[in-house]
């Protein structure tokens, strides 16, 4: 199968490849405040798994109605940081979190805070689509039901969530079928519909597209851009181009090996507008990473 499509993109010629190349940023000239108006914030966040220091001193601010991307090589603690935000790390018995995580200026690790309540405000979408082994309808209705959410009509609510997740047209005739009957990309959108069904404030996404094909990926990316109108989105991705395409701000993490033990601790290298990170990063390590020298 050889392509007979004429090339649509002007390409730099091969001799130009010695120059460092970077991903395309979606909207470099957008008018984004220089500092995010934080709906969520971490201060001196440190995470340990048992004795292992996984993440060191992370200070981040996540702006309202913005998409923030966390990028960095494997094992640098992106997922770990993400899971701290809605206390999913509580479920890892060995995990210990130090520092402060603020949500609307409330410390989510505060003594009176109920992690369940935190998760009701901060939804999550995972790397591998994980629909429940139930019908499509029940997948979406599950969240509202367990948190005892008052809705006028569950049917309407489910429909609305599936519409928001750009899935309604594809599934409206088979709401009673199992969530597993959908394709990978549809499953992932079902999970997004499920997450927004409880009306969260923030949606965390951990590499939501890494198992999907180009078409499904682009559907999810479009969806994210739409959801940004109503939600604050924080996304972990391996795909720099994806970060460049969808995010407003990007945080770059890397891992530094401990000299004696060799354990690698993750740390935040640089956090800035996406256009800045992919355009003129201020740190050599960011530069190396986005130009593909490792990772």
């Amino acid at each position: 199968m050889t392509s007979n499509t004429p090339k649509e993109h002007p390409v730099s010629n091969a001799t130009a490849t010695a120059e460092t190349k970077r991903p395309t940023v979606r909207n470099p000239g957008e008018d984004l405040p220089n500092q995010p108006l934080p709906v969520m914030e971490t201060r001196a966040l440190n995470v340990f798994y048992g004795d292992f220091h996984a993440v060191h001193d992370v200070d981040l601010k996540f702006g309202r109605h913005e998409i923030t991307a966390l990028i960095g090589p494997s094992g640098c603690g992106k997922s770990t940081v993400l899971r701290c935000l809605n206390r999913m790390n509580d479920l890892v018995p060995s995990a210990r979190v130090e520092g402060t995580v603020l949500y609307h200026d409330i410390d989510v690790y505060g003594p009176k805070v109920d992690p369940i309540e935190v998760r009701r405000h901060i939804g999550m979408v995972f790397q591998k689509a994980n629909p429940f082994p139930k019908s499509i309808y029940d997948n979406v209705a599950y969240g509202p039901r367990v948190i005892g959410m008052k809705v006028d009509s569950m049917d309407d609510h489910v429909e609305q969530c599936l519409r928001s997740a750009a899935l309604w047209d594809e599934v409206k005739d088979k709401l009673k079928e199992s969530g597993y009957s959908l394709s990978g990309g549809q499953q992932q959108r079902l999970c997004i519909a499920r997450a927004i069904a409880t009306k969260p404030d923030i949606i965390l996404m951990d590499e939501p597209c890494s198992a999907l094909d180009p078409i499904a990926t682009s559907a999810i990316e479009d969806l994210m851009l739409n959801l940004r109108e109503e939600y604050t989105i924080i996304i972990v991705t391996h795909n720099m181009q994806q970060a460049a395409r969808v995010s407003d701000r990007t945080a770059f993490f890397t891992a530094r090996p401990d000299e004696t033990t060799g354990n690698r601790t993750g740390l935040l290298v640089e956090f800035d507008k996406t256009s800045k990170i992919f355009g003129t990063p201020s740190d050599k390590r960011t530069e190396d990473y986005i130009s593909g020298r490792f990772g």
Partner: protein
Amino acid sequence: MNSVTRTATASARRTTQLNLENGARRGKWKGEVFRALLILCLVVAFVTLVAVIIQAAVKGWPRLDWNLIRQMPSTLDRESSGMQSALFGTIYLMIGLVLTVVPIGVSAAIYMEEFADQSKWWVRFIDLNIQNLAAVPSIVFGILGLALIVRGPLSLGTVVYAGSLTLAMLVLPTIILASREAIRSVPVTLRNGSLGLGATKWQTIWHQVLPSAVPGMVTGTILALSRAIGETAPLLLVGATVFVTYNPDGFFDGAYTALPVQIYQWASRPQEEFRILASAGVIVLLAVLLAMNSIAIWIRNKFTRDL
């Protein structure tokens, strides 16, 4: 391609061919002999089962009739004596056992998998304790049952439920371990999906984990029960050693006997008729067992395909 390269390629090709093809590697037969030995090992185990069945079937053949399960045991009329009371005794034992051990075992498994903090010494202690209990000789449970259930604190007497309870303790660890296995095999992504929506832990367990774990639990439970059904030694100690010509009339009342006990009884009598009955009884017991195992395997295959 100049001629030097070509010659080189040709010679490389020849050597490679010689090397790659059969027979070049010496000692191939070793692998074959080894494989044959391994199969032999497996066959030893299976052939013995077949021999047990055949031997019992051949010996018990004259008595493999409906009377065997329709009639009560009889000393006078050995030709048509049966084991109905033993069959019913076993059924009663099993019902009492299931009702007791499944709720406790599944609950314990849920606790250990979902709530217990493995870093706590007492959780590890319970864990160790369960594992150890799983390998305690069954006769020791007989002693326990005799001392604490039939007599001692519970003083139930030699009733069906005393036997059920003794067997319950015996299979409890097996049920816990199987249920834990089933719970553990529920993908963590499912749990995270539910918890990430703000469901509480128990909601997550009840709505997501348990429904997915049920097939595994049922399978494990049936396998554990099929072990219990053949247990003889503890029952000998807790009072099922009885010649009874009627079925149990309750869990807390009267005398009972059970299939394996009846078989043991008959096997240790001198008269040939009883020996034949014992062998026929073995076939009945094995049939019950195979039926239970088949159900377990069927459930496992049916549901593992779906997940």
